[in-house]
């Protein structure tokens, strides 16, 4: 056999160790996602269903919102629904890894523990961002004028939203240990979060009490930012306020994730 002594490794900084670990975990998670084409297909069917119901079906009935065709108005929200639902679900892979024992092996690797969830965020948010970029390519069919700058800015908005909601999904998975409880909680939270976010109707048109509830929903800021980016004009808040709100939420959930991850 061989000697037990490892060759002297080059001195690595904590940053380089962390970056390597995040890349390894992300690579592993992406590989697993690619091995499940059925999941990707079902996600494609889901977005197609939303487009058919809201952008096509309701478009004939509602016509326009503030001079914008309803299909164009609702499209940024439909993409956001996809980004948020898949983002939160990607965070739940942490719970599956825990359920199947894989997490134990990862937690005793000589890397900072925060790298494990961060690797999952990179994989989950990265995959969702690619999907949102593909979906945005169909925006002109919904009546949206898509310039390269708007396209790039919108992809950036969805990348930020995907990151925020992947981290929220991970936080839930680290806080709720029971798989069934976690799934039930996510299911319970997801429906109001997706539809009370301004994705289909604006908080400005809602009763005061419902608008207040919508302002508590982090997804509202993601939808508002994406809609302003793609349609131009004024949103619920000015764009930088949406960006600041999403940034603040991201900082908050990252701190929670760091606390839950340990050393």
């Amino acid at each position: 056999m061989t000697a037990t002594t490892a060759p002297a490794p080059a001195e690595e900084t904590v940053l380089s160790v962390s970056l390597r670990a995040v890349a390894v975990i992300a690579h592993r998670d992406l590989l697993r996602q690619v091995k499940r084409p059925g999941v990707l297909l079902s996600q494609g069917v889901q977005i197609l269903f939303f487009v058919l119901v809201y952008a096509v079906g309701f478009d004939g009935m509602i016509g326009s919102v503030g001079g914008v065709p309803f299909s164009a108005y609702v499209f940024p929200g439909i993409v956001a629904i996809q980004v948020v639902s898949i983002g939160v679900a990607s965070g739940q892979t942490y719970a599956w890894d825990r359920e199947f024992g894989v997490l134990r092996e990862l937690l005793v690797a000589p890397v900072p523990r925060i790298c494990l969830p961060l690797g999952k965020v990179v994989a989950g948010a990265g995959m969702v961002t690619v999907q949102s970029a593909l979906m945005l390519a169909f925006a002109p069919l919904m009546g949206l004028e898509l310039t390269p700058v708007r396209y790039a800015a919108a992809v950036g908005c969805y990348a930020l939203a995907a990151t925020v909601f992947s981290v929220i999904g991970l936080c839930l998975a680290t806080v709720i240990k029971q798989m069934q409880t976690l799934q039930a909680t996510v299911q319970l939270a997801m429906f109001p979060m997706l539809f009370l976010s301004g994705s289909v109707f604006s908080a400005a048109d809602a009763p005061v009490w419902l608008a207040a509830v919508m302002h508590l929903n982090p997804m509202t800021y993601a939808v508002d930012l994406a809609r302003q980016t793609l349609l131009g004009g004024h949103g619920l808040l000015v764009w930088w306020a949406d960006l600041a709100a999403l940034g603040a939420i991201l900082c908050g959930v990252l701190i929670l994730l760091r606390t839950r991850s340990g050393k």
Partner: protein
Amino acid sequence: MEAAPAFEVADLVVRYGKVTAVAGVSVDSPPGRITALLGPNGAGKSSLLGVLSTASRPDAGRVRIFGHDVGAAPMAARRRLGLVFQERTLDKELSVERNLWFHARLFGMTRSDARSRIALLLGLFDLADRRRQPVEQLSGGLSRRLEIARALLHRPGLIILDEPTNGLDPSARSTVWTDLLRLRTELGVTVLYSTHYMDEAEYADEIVILQQGSVVRRGGPEELKDGLASSRILVSCADPADHGTAERQLRAAGFPTLSEAGGLAVHCAEPEARIAEVVRVLDVPGLTVSVRHPSLNDVYLAAAGQESASPR
């Protein structure tokens, strides 16, 4: 040459709420030794291994791996550790080779080192022709071998195995033990494992028996058995009715006897030297006389009996 002990546990306490799983355990091992942890379910074996593996934190006490404190320097300790958990921790969706590759990269091995080391270990553990097979297609025994290979990939000095043969058939168990014994003889790796099987404990240089979170026996297999002083000559008659006669004859000759399943037992320090005397004094038909030395099972049961009898 390693100066520090491979592992060093001092006054370890682990609690789960109001339950104390480990109550002041102190054990250590020099490099190259094989140590077995024995004890019933709930004795604290997995809790002790959990802290040693850096997966959980102690409530009190000190734990060092090759001199690295697992609380203060967990990453340095983890680099010297190879772990095989009680439950399967392989990624079933990925191939044999991919599982090893991601482990190697997480442990900071360079790509070229990882490639050569994976090829070497796949060959050593007879897994080379399964390198592209998904783990979910492997048998329990092969999965275990892969986990042991993975634990060795980054060249640890200490390998910890929590009930490594749990759920395996006798043939797979035997193969796993052949592999594990090679670790020390060929690699000089220190091994710490927990088991419920007494025959597996015999492989160890030192056995630590835990009961209700405390060490109740510690020593080499022979040392523990010798310490029990329960070697005996077993006497049985073809007709159980003759046991009374045999007992009277033995007592008359000065041999104290005790009843044992299937006959009588004469306890003495060197039964081989005295068996001829026993045979000479017995005059009963259909006599069978044999010698029995204490087994690890006797040691284990004696430890369990002592612990349950002692006030807590």
